[in-house]
């Protein structure tokens, strides 16, 4: 009996062990390390703790401030929140977040409702609408950088539409660059949202809308009172993915503007990479990473608590099914 028990344990270890090892060593551990590094002033090269500091600790039993100047406590955090560039970066993340929810969401739902019917070329349409999503952010970003060059494709397109005169410098004007960024991101991600919504709409039984129409409901009333509520779970999940994506925005910005001009399109992640990689300030960079993580975590938990609860049935707390 106990050998059977042992065997089961061995099996569990054998099957789950490798994944758990990889995951803990390369996902959890670095995040813990980030929290540790974030209270030091450190360039990532020498030892984290000054050797003389450790010796002093061994001798005196306490960390003398003069010996341990690499340990700075919460200084990195106060520095971050005092830096207008970083606060601006947080603002940019939330601007994209808000615009995505307010514009991309309704746009995608509207398109999905329109396209959710038997029509010619539907398969092709679904294929084409998804193209921007499969391209990497790097390639899509570079493509848009080329399109948005002065007098290039985008400006010419505006000419055709009847925009006379000067066009803004889309990616170089600090007042405009975030809106341009949102335009590119919408181009890249609205197809994904539409596909999600269309998949969600397939789960809405046709009989319900038909019954409503027989009862005399208009097309709009049917969508508003039957289809949209039943699409709720899909919309909420999309919104969750969109929120998380907006907070972690990096690739697109880094490729198109590197956060410039003059940090006017910086996000938390580009700020973090700039600090940690170009300026070698690992301690400060990881403090920014921790702030990014905590903001995402709080929003995710609040969102899950209030919006996703019924959909996930506690999947992330392990009680689901």
């Amino acid at each position, binding site marked *: 009996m106990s050998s059977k028990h042992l065997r*089961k344990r061995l*099996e569990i270890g*054998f*099957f*789950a062990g*490798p*994944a758990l090892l*990889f*995951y803990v*060593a*390369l*996902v959890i551990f*670095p995040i813990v390390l*980030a929290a540790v590094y974030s209270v030091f002033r450190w360039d990532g090269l020498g030892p984290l703790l000054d050797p003389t500091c450790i010796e002093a600790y061994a001798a005196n039993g306490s960390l003398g401030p003069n010996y341990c100047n690499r340990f700075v406590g919460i200084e990195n955090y106060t520095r971050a929140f005092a830096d207008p560039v970083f606060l601006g970066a947080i603002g940019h993340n939330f601007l994209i977040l808000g615009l995505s929810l307010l514009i991309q969401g309704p746009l995608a739902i509207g398109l999905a409702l*329109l*396209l959710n*019917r038997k*029509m010619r070329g539907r398969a092709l349409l679904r*294929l*084409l609408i*998804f*193209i921007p999503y*499969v*391209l*990497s*952010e*790097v*390639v899509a970003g*570079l*493509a848009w950088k*080329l*399109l948005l*060059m002065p*007098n290039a494709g985008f400006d*010419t397109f505006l000419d055709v539409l009847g925009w006379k005169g000067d066009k803004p410098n889309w990616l170089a004007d600090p007042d405009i660059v975030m809106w341009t960024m949102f335009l590119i991101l919408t*181009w890249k991600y609205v197809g*994904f949202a539409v*596909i*999600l919504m269309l*998949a969600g709409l397939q789960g809405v039984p046709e009989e319900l809308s038909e019954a409503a129409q027989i009862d005399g409901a208009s*097309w709009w009333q049917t969508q508003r009172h039957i289809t949209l509520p039943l699409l709720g779970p*899909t919309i909420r999940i999309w919104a969750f993915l969109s929120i*998380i994506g907006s907070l972690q925005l*990096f*690739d697109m910005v*880094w*490729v198109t503007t590197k956060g410039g001009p003059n940090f006017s399109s910086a996000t938390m*992640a580009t700020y973090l990479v700039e600090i940690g*990689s170009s300026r070698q300030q*690992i301690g400060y960079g990881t403090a920014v*990473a921790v702030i*990014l*993580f905590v903001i*995402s975590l709080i929003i*995710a938990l609040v969102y899950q608590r209030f919006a996703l609860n019924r959909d996930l049935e506690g*999947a*992330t*707390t*392990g009680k689901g*099914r």
Partner: protein
Amino acid sequence: MATTTTAPVTRRRRIDFGAPIVYLVALIIISATVVPVAYIVINGFRTTKQLNEAPAGWPDPWTFSTYGRVLFGQDTLFWSQAGNSTVVALGTTLGVVIFGVMAAFVIARYEFKARNLLYALFTAGLLFPISVAILPLSIMLKTLGLNGSVFGLIIPQVAFALPTTIIILVPFLRAIPKELEDAALIDGTSRIGFFWRILLPLSGPGLVTVGVLAFVNSWNAYLLPLFVLGAGGAGQSNYTLPLGVQQFSTQYSSDTAGVLAFTSLAMIPALLFFTLAERRIVGGLTGAVKG
């Protein structure tokens, strides 16, 4: 003839009414998605001189030398970078599918105390973006001597792809009837035998889905290669395609035609792969969302 055309129209008036608008909207969407891509591809057939004279225009005459130079030029890095991307993506896919299905098997079909904790630990990983971990991770990889190598990409990518993989696979493996397992056990098969001979073959579609997702994500990855290869000091011939195309566009920014051609060529693998695996990607994404 008359009856077949009028019958559906009278039964569903609104489609007849809305159809032109729908097709118009569909047309606008298609133009919005396809035209920018086509613009890049077509302008790659112009010379830099033409591009400087008129930034937007039709190739006149069509010049094939830029594409030829990027593809077959003596010092072109396109093929080696595409090769690196392939190696890294295949390695990541293989690793994440193998370790992912093993862990999902335990979570889905074993009863033990820490099971829910294990599941929660992996699902929480959805909230750990690689950007939060990147600075310590890159220092770790440097210490381990993995900077600049494909393993420095594959190993962390496997780890970061595990949460999605496990979340998709667990319900999939749970759905396989308990009776099958009982029957296999009665016939004298061990749990491991059941895993190999029954569960794995039955979960083929699920494995393909998570595999395709892992492949695409690895193929498109930028931040990790930026640190591991870019800052890690690897030569450009060891770059992956996203890193390579970005490097090319900075290094040869005055060679607009070259940048356009390189960017177009970098699009092709993803587009090809996507057309082949479209159903799997869409199915996987919507499946992941329905969780």
